[in-house]
């Protein structure tokens, strides 16, 4: 992992009326890092993530994403990041091939680039035989892998994954993490949220949000030592129980 910062956040805050959803959060994320972004429902994760993706304008603070100022260049940031949401970003009524072609177009790839990517992806995901299958008839595990690959189509510097493994079987869940490891090894920064505490252990560093603040940040080993916990599940429980704000 390099020391090059790809996300740098200082006192970033988002207020909705009198409600402070995200309360002066400060952290850096490095190139090629797998950064776990944890928190109970309602802790402010989604709001923070939406800000970092340029989808929600912060109330105050400072932040750069992919080297660009979040307050001034949100539109440029959107082109340099990938985003995979909990609910799929794929079009169910389009075939696998059509989804790849569509997103290639959206991200401004040339026809030639799309063609190369298409062949590579279909091969890598072993989806050659399903290229013309509608996405809606793919098993969930395949959809999630395809969804991830589509988010990576334009070779973004950072990819944001919002609960990417919800509901899939345990083997597919681990195959998905293999894709994450490969992306990180290739230099892409992975910013990921999850409710599976074993997955928190796969991250290089983990931050845990409580009531809009980042209450803990460190490698899984550091956090386990600090909170005298056996696993990340226990760390999470200790912190999240302190929350005073009601869930969601």
């Amino acid at each position: 992992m390099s020391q090059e910062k790809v996300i740098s956040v200082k006192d970033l805050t988002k207020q909705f009326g009198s409600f402070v959803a995200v309360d002066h959060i400060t952290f850096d994320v490095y190139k090629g890092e797998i950064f776990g972004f944890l928190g109970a429902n309602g802790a402010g994760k989604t709001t923070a993530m939406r800000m970092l993706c340029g989808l929600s304008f912060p109330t105050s603070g400072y932040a750069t994403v992919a080297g660009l100022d979040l307050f001034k260049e949100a539109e440029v940031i959107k082109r340099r990041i990938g985003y995979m949401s909990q609910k799929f970003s794929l079009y169910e009524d389009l075939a696998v091939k059509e989804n790849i072609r569509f997103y290639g177009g959206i991200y401004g790839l040339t026809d030639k680039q799309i063609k190369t990517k298409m062949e590579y992806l279909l091969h890598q995901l072993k989806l050659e035989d399903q290229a013309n299958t509608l996405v809606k008839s793919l098993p969930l595990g395949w959809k999630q892998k395809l969804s991830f690959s589509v988010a990576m189509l334009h070779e973004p510097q950072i990819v944001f994954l919002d609960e990417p493994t919800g509901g899939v079987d345990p083997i597919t869940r681990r195959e998905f993490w293999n894709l994450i490891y490969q992306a990180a090894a290739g230099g892409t920064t992975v910013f990921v949220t999850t409710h599976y505490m074993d997955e928190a252990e796969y991250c290089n560093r983990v931050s845990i949000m409580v009531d809009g603040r980042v209450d803990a940040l460190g490698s899984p080993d550091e956090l386990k030592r600090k909170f005298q916990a056996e696993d990340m599940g226990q760390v999470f429980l200790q912190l999240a129980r302190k929350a005073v704000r009601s869930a969601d």
Partner: protein
Amino acid sequence: MKAVVVDSVAKTFKVEKNVVTALHDVSFEARQGELFGLIGPDGAGKTTLFRILTTLMLADRGSATVDGFDVVKDFKEIRKRVGYMPGRFSLYQDLTVRENLSFFATLFNTSIEENYDLVKGIYSQIEKFKDRKAGALSGGMKQKLALSCALIHRPSVLFLDEPTTGVDAVSRKEFWELLRDLQKQNITIVVSTPYMDEAGLCDRVALIQEGRILDIDSPEGITKKFGKTLWAFKADDMYKLMLQLEAMPEVESCYPFGSEHHVMFRNPGQSIESITSRLPFSHLTTKKIDPTIEDCFMHLMRSK
């Protein structure tokens, strides 16, 4: 008496021109007062089973009874006796918390007051929001309201379809504590979940995958049947460790499990030294461990 009996139930759906089999001759029983878990990923057939058992859908083949009543012949009796919390929030978003609960009580010819003791533990947590529209509640509170509404007519069997999906670890733990309390009131609970770690909280579980039951037993019974030696490996570079282990011909499977990798060897008497001597990692540790339900699930998936 058995609270739920499912006998060779099969169900197929037509999707476009294809026929998808949601359930292949599934059979299981849940005893009265039991907390029975259906454990499996999306697409396993859990929701289809719930819909058949709550008389919302007919099976292609097979039979099922709930509380002694047949799901086809006696559907009206069953509807009086079961509580059902679907996976998707399905209360009235533009009614208040109190109005929703009172509506469901009225449907079943009862009142909130009559059965208050049953829902008290749950409802008291959302009662301060009783005048808020259900649509404006947080996820956790919606879930508690849905459970209260499913309980207000004092059902004998409660069906909960993935009540903890997308819920954080703390709220999940609290929800299971609620279920344990309910069980004391002699309500049979059939609950589905994709979270393997929740299996241990049930009395018995059915592990289900792609419409087939892989095993049915108590959580301890399932892990006892694993029958293979399982090793936990740990080192400073876990990703490299996994790649190297996977590449070894002696290794049957290697899966990351939190801060460890769980490894099985093809030969049950595999010498561990002959493996570790070929792994150039610092801080390499290995130990024999007992399998978790998730280990068993993956093992059953692969040997299928």
